[in-house]
């Protein structure tokens, strides 16, 4: 594995989108502060009937699926041995890292008595028979694994850094305080560079084991996210309540993972004005329809077997959401089946959006829309509750945006044509 596959995206960090995202993040954080001071009721509409609101449904159940880009890419690269996708993995892992880290964070916001949360780190307090426990352990372990997987990017940078930004900052500070400039800071931080250089080859050697863990853990907990709802047999609508929930969640997270990897690549190339990775993306897109076909087959077969096909077509409240979810996934897959459409960035984008929306709606259906705790209960997220979720998502995008400009994450541009194109963008940006 060569670290030359990646490069830093050279661009300004303080862009207008940075300011917007930062504002949203700060609003979210302020509301989280309100939640911890005044309690969950002050910011959310959750109740005894709906103890899981938008935070669990989106931030945890859907957010981790959307963060499965790293998982899907790792399967593709290491299990199916398609090494030419390797340059794309680092950005996928970065997205996953933010997604999972913040899913764990949302749980802390959501937990009713957060001061008891430390018990989770005490093995004697574990309830090992719980699906929730499995999810919690895996999310935590996987976040750690993702951090380790991402570490090479940090180490490479540390190894080569001249501490220029830090030096500039210090120079400015010293100048402002009217003090004499001391020796360059880089000399004093050589130890850090040495440590990074020492650690990197060692990390490279064990990285494959960490990657294996990184593939195992999501397989375990993504299916557990489905198992969680197996308990709610009387509350979840029969359209979605099935013994196949774990399997459906697992496949669902894979096709969402590939789709999100496509979206992420398209959007970041578009936003950062880099050439599109059409060849890799269309290759990846050829996998998705097979996964969705398996998924849709299980869904339909299971409905038929349980005699719920009539309910699916009854066009009532639940049936409409089911059909919407079904059509989004099926429509996106149909587009991706066409080889010609797969060659087009536009259609790749459209179909990936449809599949991500459909896959996410499936999780919403299972966790929230198809969930009915009894007569009279109702739930709709409060504005503050939504803004906390928006703040967390904004922080994810913000973090991605900043990190790719600091660390070598995006694939290196190789061909002349690519470089010219990139140069052209840069020139266009300057004008």
């Amino acid at each position, binding site marked *: 594995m060569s670290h030359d596959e990646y490069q830093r995206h050279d661009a300004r960090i303080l862009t207008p989108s940075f300011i917007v995202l930062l504002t949203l993040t700060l609003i979210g954080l302020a509301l989280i502060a309100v939640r911890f001071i005044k309690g969950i009721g002050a910011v959310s*509409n*959750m*109740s*005894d*009937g*709906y103890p899981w609101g938008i935070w669990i449904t989106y931030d945890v159940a859907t957010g981790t699926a959307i963060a499965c880009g790293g998982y899907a890419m790792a399967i593709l690269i290491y299990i199916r041995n398609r090494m030419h996708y390797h340059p794309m993995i680092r950005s996928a892992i970065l997205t996953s890292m933010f997604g999972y880290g913040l899913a764990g964070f949302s749980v802390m916001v959501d937990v009713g008595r957060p001061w008891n949360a430390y018990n989770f780190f005490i093995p004697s307090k574990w309830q090992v028979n719980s699906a929730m426990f499995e999810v919690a352990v895996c999310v935590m372990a996987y976040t750690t694994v993702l951090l380790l997987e991402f570490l090479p990017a940090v180490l490479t940078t540390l190894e080569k850094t001249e501490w220029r930004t830090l030096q500039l900052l210090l120079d400015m500070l010293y100048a402002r305080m009217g003090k004499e400039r001391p020796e360059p800071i880089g000399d004093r931080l050589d130890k850090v560079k040495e440590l990074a250089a020492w650690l990197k080859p060692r990390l490279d050697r064990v990285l494959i084991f960490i990657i294996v863990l990184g593939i195992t853990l999501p397989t375990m907990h993504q299916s557990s996210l489905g198992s969680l709802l197996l308990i709610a047999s009387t509350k979840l609508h029969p359209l979605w309540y099935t013994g196949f929930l774990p399997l459906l969640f697992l496949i669902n997270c894979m096709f969402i993972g590939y789709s999100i990897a496509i979206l992420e690549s*398209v*959007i970041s190339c*578009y936003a950062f*004005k880099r*050439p*599109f990775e*059409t060849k890799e993306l269309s290759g990846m897109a050829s996998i998705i329809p097979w996964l969705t076909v398996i998924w849709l087959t299980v869904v339909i077969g299971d409905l038929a077997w349980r005699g719920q096909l009539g309910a699916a077509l009854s066009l009532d409240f639940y049936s409409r959401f089911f059909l919407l979810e079904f059509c989004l996934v099926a429509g996106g897959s149909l587009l991706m089946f066409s080889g010609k459409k797969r*060659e*087009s*960035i*536009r*259609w790749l*984008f*459209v179909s990936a*959006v449809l599949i991500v929306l459909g896959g996410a709606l499936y999780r919403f259906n299972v966790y929230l829309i198809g969930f009915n705790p009894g007569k*009279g*209960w*109702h*739930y*709709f*997220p*409060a*504005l503050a509750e*939504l803004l906390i979720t928006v703040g967390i998502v904004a922080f994810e995008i913000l973090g991605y945006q900043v990190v790719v400009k600091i660390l070598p994450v995006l694939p290196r541009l190789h061909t002349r*044509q690519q470089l010219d*194109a990139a140069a*052209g*963008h840069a020139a*266009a940006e300057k004008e």
Partner: protein
Amino acid sequence: MGKEGLFPGVSRRDFIKTCVTVSAMLGLPFGMVSKVAAAARKADSRPAVIWLHFQECTGCSESLLRSSHPTVANLILDMISLDYHETLMAGSGHQAEKSLHDSMTANKGKYILVVEGGIPTKDNGIYCKVAGKTALESLHKAAEGAAAIISIGTCASYGGIQSVGPNPTGAVGVSDIIKDKPVINIPGCPPNPYNFLSTVLYYVTFKKLPELDKLGRPLFAYGRKIHEHCERRAHFDAGRFAKAYGDATHAAGYCLYKLGCKGPATYANCSVTRFNDGVAWPVGIGHPCIGCTEPDLLFKTAIADKVQIHEPTPFDSYAPVDLKNKGKGPDPLTTGVIGLAAGAAIGAGVMMARRLPDGPEKEDEHGKSE
């Protein structure tokens, strides 16, 4: 501390067990056990106790001694320095009087005075005399140098059976006579020995009196009604009452309220602490509570009379399962914001899709269109 320790014949295990029991009775945290034990063990901390008997049946002393805790009785008699107790002391006559006088002089202002029995006041108190002195005289004299007075039993607390009308001897309780000293009432006929022991140990340990209710009873023992912790309470709430002694309803262990149980009006811990080593208590064996800790009940109302229940707590309905507030629905602002955001997202998505190149080899076109 073995058998050769401070209290001969008491094993360390029994000693600690007693201290744990007493700490629990007092509602002290478990950690306080060692403090109680230390206070009990310290020989020089033993307060002198003078125990006077007046118009009484010695039932309270008997209860203390003949409770199924002989070791406890011994222990307590060792833990406190019992200098004068008419039924227990070996000496008699002038010897006994001397010991009383000596202790009162030596421990002036420090000793605990325990009074058992009512005090006759009519005709200058001539109806009860010990060693040529009336009960009234003895009490005044002993109370003068006492640190605190414990009235054990209902007679010493409120006058008891001899004070019931027409009250020929003019009997009253200690607190009706002594006004300038702290008086703790441990009423009961007889009171639970542990309530007495706990009060004494509390005083020995903390050097202060426990919290009292308005009748001068320690709150730790007399803070709640028997009814609140009665083992038959569920029958009361369900409306199952014993109709007569020996009846099938009585045999089935139903609530004794209709047989005259005074539990709903009686403040005491009998239902929790029980008697005879904690195994039995009147209501438990099928007799209604006679309200012996209450000045207005025992000997003042017939055993078969029902008390007025002022706080009828038996619930006539269950807590509502069908809540009125079952979550919050959407409000216009939220849906509006979601609508706008979704619209903007779809719009942005469509615009972006339109700007994206539609074809395999048109990557550079993207740049030109910018």
